[in-house]
């Protein structure tokens, strides 16, 4: 089956804007129009504003509305305008804060749900950035509007991607009676500090090894902070480009960027090994859009063992850094101070499980120990949070984790923005809650790295192989989740394991196995 992939709006680096929707002028009331969808349906499209000013929209197939509404929560969007010439990876330039309502993960999926008799709804939230608390309130109000304006509404299924998954889980925990089932996909989970520690550790590692001028936290106020963040992303990109471009260099010192402060003893180790170490200690996936970590040209496995992990991390790190930089900027402003803190982080423990598996990529135990020693030397100066920042962060909405309504997660195992360890956290909270919780995984394929005739990796493909990228699911995968969520909404519990196995059997890349597990986010491993 032809795949129609979508990219959920999530974080800075992977931002892909969906089609804009006109804003209705009236507050608390919808203005509605008929619209023909690309699959030939005539649907009613209603738009309005919630009391907090958030744009909302809902779409109904008036001919066969079955009484169930899918309420979508979109992912992270930049909270600040960015001027022309400053373009975070995946973003647009100039970027204007996007306040449009979003009713589903893709037009195709939305139209399929409408064709099946469901209604779809969603808002743009009242602010952008990490806006979970107000987004939950907006969603609650929107549910009320839906029930008022669509009196045939019998039930609401909450779903969302990335930060939208976090919002969905928060909604399900706080207002379980308002929804019948929930589907947080490619979700962040637990508390936001876990997600930002992931990105912060990556940035701190890059700052320590490659460029001391990289900012990890403590952004300036106002436009200066925005410029600082954009410049910061440029520095990270420059480091990654340098290492990627010199990865085959035999003189290891030349693989280090000129900005690196490392002593000669460390520069005797290939810079790719330091990047691999940083990626592993932060928890960046080693599999990426173009690098499967398994393939090698001919019979020479050295590519897979020594180079591919660094190349995969380099591809993913740009996106993860985007998250770290712009979400940190946003949240520091929200909470009133710097919150990243690694004063007690034990980075050796962080990689204890991986140093054997990635030993070749890390250039052996002596190199690993040498690099780790840097992290506890004056070169690796730790960062302390401000009390205000840390307290403010801890006051953000957090999950308890237990599924109170039937909940279905779907997660790419090599997601570089919201790593799969987020969903594992939820899964671990619900190991015995099998009637209410169903974890699905989009696992990576066997191999997808391509090589040229001369053995060089080919990175020209724009496709996202199963399990890679952020929220890069096929329509089949997303619709399977939607159908299972609908079934769960009817039954009051997730479908039986046998039914789920049948449902996922022919969906490429989708795995259901209750005993399958991935490593938790490093933050949760402590």
């Amino acid at each position, binding site marked *: 089956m032809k795949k129609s992939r979508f990219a959920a709006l999530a974080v800075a680096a992977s931002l892909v804007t969906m089609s804009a929707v006109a804003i209705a002028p009236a507050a608390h009331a919808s203005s509605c129009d008929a619209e023909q969808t690309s699959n030939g349906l005539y649907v009613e499209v209603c738009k309005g504003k919630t009391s907090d000013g958030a744009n909302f929209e809902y779409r109904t197939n008036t001919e066969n509305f079955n009484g169930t509404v899918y309420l979508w929560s979109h992912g992270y969007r930049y909270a600040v305008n960015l001027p022309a010439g400053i373009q975070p990876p995946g973003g647009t330039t100039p970027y204007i804060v996007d306040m449009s309502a979003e009713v589903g993960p893709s037009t195709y999926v939305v139209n399929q749900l409408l064709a*099946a*008799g469901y209604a779809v709804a969603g808002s743009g939230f009242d602010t952008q950035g990490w806006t979970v608390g107000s987004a939950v309130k907006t969603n609650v109000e929107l549910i009320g509007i839906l029930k008022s304006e669509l009196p045939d509404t019998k039930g609401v299924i909450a779903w969302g991607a990335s930060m939208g998954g976090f919002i969905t889980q928060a909604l399900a925990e706080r207002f379980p009676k308002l929804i019948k089932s929930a589907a947080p996909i490619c979700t962040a989970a637990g508390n936001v500090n876990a997600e930002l520690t992931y990105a912060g550790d990556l940035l701190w590692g890059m700052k320590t090894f490659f460029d001391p001028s990289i900012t990890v936290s403590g952004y300036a106020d106002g436009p200066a902070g925005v410029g600082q963040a954009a410049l910061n992303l440029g520095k990270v990109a420059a480091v990654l480009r340098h290492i990627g471009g010199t990865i085959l260099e035999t003189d290891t010192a030349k693989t280090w960027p000129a900005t690196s402060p490392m002593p000669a003893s460390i520069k005797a180790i290939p810079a790719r090994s330091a990047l691999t170490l940083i990626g592993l200690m932060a928890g960046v996936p*080693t*599999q990426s859009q173009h690098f*499967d*970590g*398994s393939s*090698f040209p001919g*019979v*020479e*496995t*050295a590519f*897979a*063992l*020594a180079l*591919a992990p660094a190349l995969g991390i380099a591809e993913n790190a740009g996106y993860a850094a985007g998250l770290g930089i712009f979400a940190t900027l946003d949240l520091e402003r929200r909470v009133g101070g710097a919150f990243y803190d690694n004063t007690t982080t034990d980075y050796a423990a962080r990689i204890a*499980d991986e140093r*054997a*598996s*990635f*030993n*070749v990529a890390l*250039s*052996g*135990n*002596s*190199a690993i120990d040498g690099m780790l020693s840097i992290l506890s030397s004056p070169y690796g100066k730790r960062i302390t949070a401000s009390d205000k920042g840390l307290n403010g962060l801890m006051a953000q909405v957090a999950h308890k984790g237990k599924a109170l309504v039937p909940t279905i997660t779907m997660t790419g195992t090599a997601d570089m923005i919201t790593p799969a360890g987020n969903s594992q956290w939820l899964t671990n909270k619900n190991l015995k809650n099998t009637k209410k919780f169903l974890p699905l995984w989009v*696992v*990576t394929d*066997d191999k997808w790295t391509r090589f040229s005739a001369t053995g060089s990796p080919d990175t020209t493909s724009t496709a996202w192989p199963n399990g890679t990228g952020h929220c890069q699911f096929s329509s089949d995968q997303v619709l399977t989740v939607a*159908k299972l969520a*609908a*079934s769960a909404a009817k039954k009051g519990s997730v479908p039986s394991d046998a039914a789920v196995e049948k449902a996922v059997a022919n969906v490429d890349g989708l*795995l259901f*196995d209750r*005993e*399958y*597990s*991935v*490593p938790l986010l490093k933050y949760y491993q402590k």
Partner: protein
Amino acid sequence: MIRNTPKKRALFVSAVIAAGAMALSTMPAQAASQPGITSTEIKLGITSPLSGKVAAVYGKIPGAMKAYFSHVNDNGGVYGRKINLISKDDAYVPTLAVKATNDLIMKDKVFAIVGALGTANHLAALRSANLSGRGVPDLFVNTGFSGFADKAKYKTTFAVLPSYVMEAKIMAKYIDDNYKGKKVALIVQDDDFGLDAVAGFATAGLKPEVTIKFPTGADSLAAAQGWITGKLKPANIDIAIIFATTTTSAAVLGAAAGLQYRPTVGWMLGSVGGDSNTLRAGGVPLAILNGAIGTSFAPDPSDATDEYVNFFKGIYAKYVPGSTFDLTVLQGMNSAMLTVQALRAAGKNPTRDGLIKAIETKGAKFASAGFTPLKYSPSSHVGYSGYWIGKYSATGSLQPIDGKRVLYTTDSGSGPVVSATISRAPLPTNGLPTNS
């Protein structure tokens, strides 16, 4: 539209139950819903490098195990069930080992994993495929990394090879007994394999004059020439220990041949890198191997006086004609024989838990080609516990020194190295275990 149409199936279900009852009365006993077990088959899985640089050496293991299983299957199987070994390629790359192991468990639904190969590979697989948490038996791993016998961490994993710590301690003991005061160099991989070795030598009190640690893969001929000319020669080394894979042994010995270099006493090879057939295939001239000291827990594959060797050799020639019988093949077939005994010990209705308990309670008595005792018990998943020391002959076979096979046993901790006597059970009749 998403809709489930209920169907009345009562009559159909009744018919199925009746037919099933009739069929059951004619079938062998069957364990209740055990993955990989049917009335006619036991499905096992193995990951090993079938492609890539080391495929020519380690890729022979699945074929060797299948050869022995074929012999058992052709003689009635295990309580009537045929063993079906599903082999997956991991190319000796951890990422692929994880994928292959997950596929064996989740797609092929094997009963147990057997003979998985490679320290880094299997550590990655254990971490990501959750064998312990799933309760999947992980039998007779083909690596001597001491950590795999950590029952608290890996509840379902059973080591079989003596650990690298044991091997290093025994080598150190031999050097101390026979070459006390000589200058020793140690060439070792800079990973967990090497870490075990370094720990073992340190525990035994051996302090190498020169230690060459190299990242895995950084063992080219040119690198080996540099080690010899830059470190071994200047230090006037008496005994140079190569504790690495055959790729490294081949590089070092090949370089030594080219440079006409030999430590004053000679070379000492760890068991992993000491298979002469593989070294010969890698271009190492046998002359340089002649007189080198080596270790093994099993007989040399060319030992025509050994009943296990002769039996395995015959079976291998029958089922894998044209392929060279070497130490890797012998070890693979030996692990297959242990597997059959474990399955038999688990009974006619095997379960995963039952298989693990069977090895813990009966595994120490299993017949095998190994000369040193197996240490399986309810509190230990340690396999063989020692080595014998030999010297390579002019034809490349590892032979007991002065015609007498001296065994040493020890543990992976601080326990002493002690001499032991051979306590090997005889080969079961026609190589077919009858244990229960």
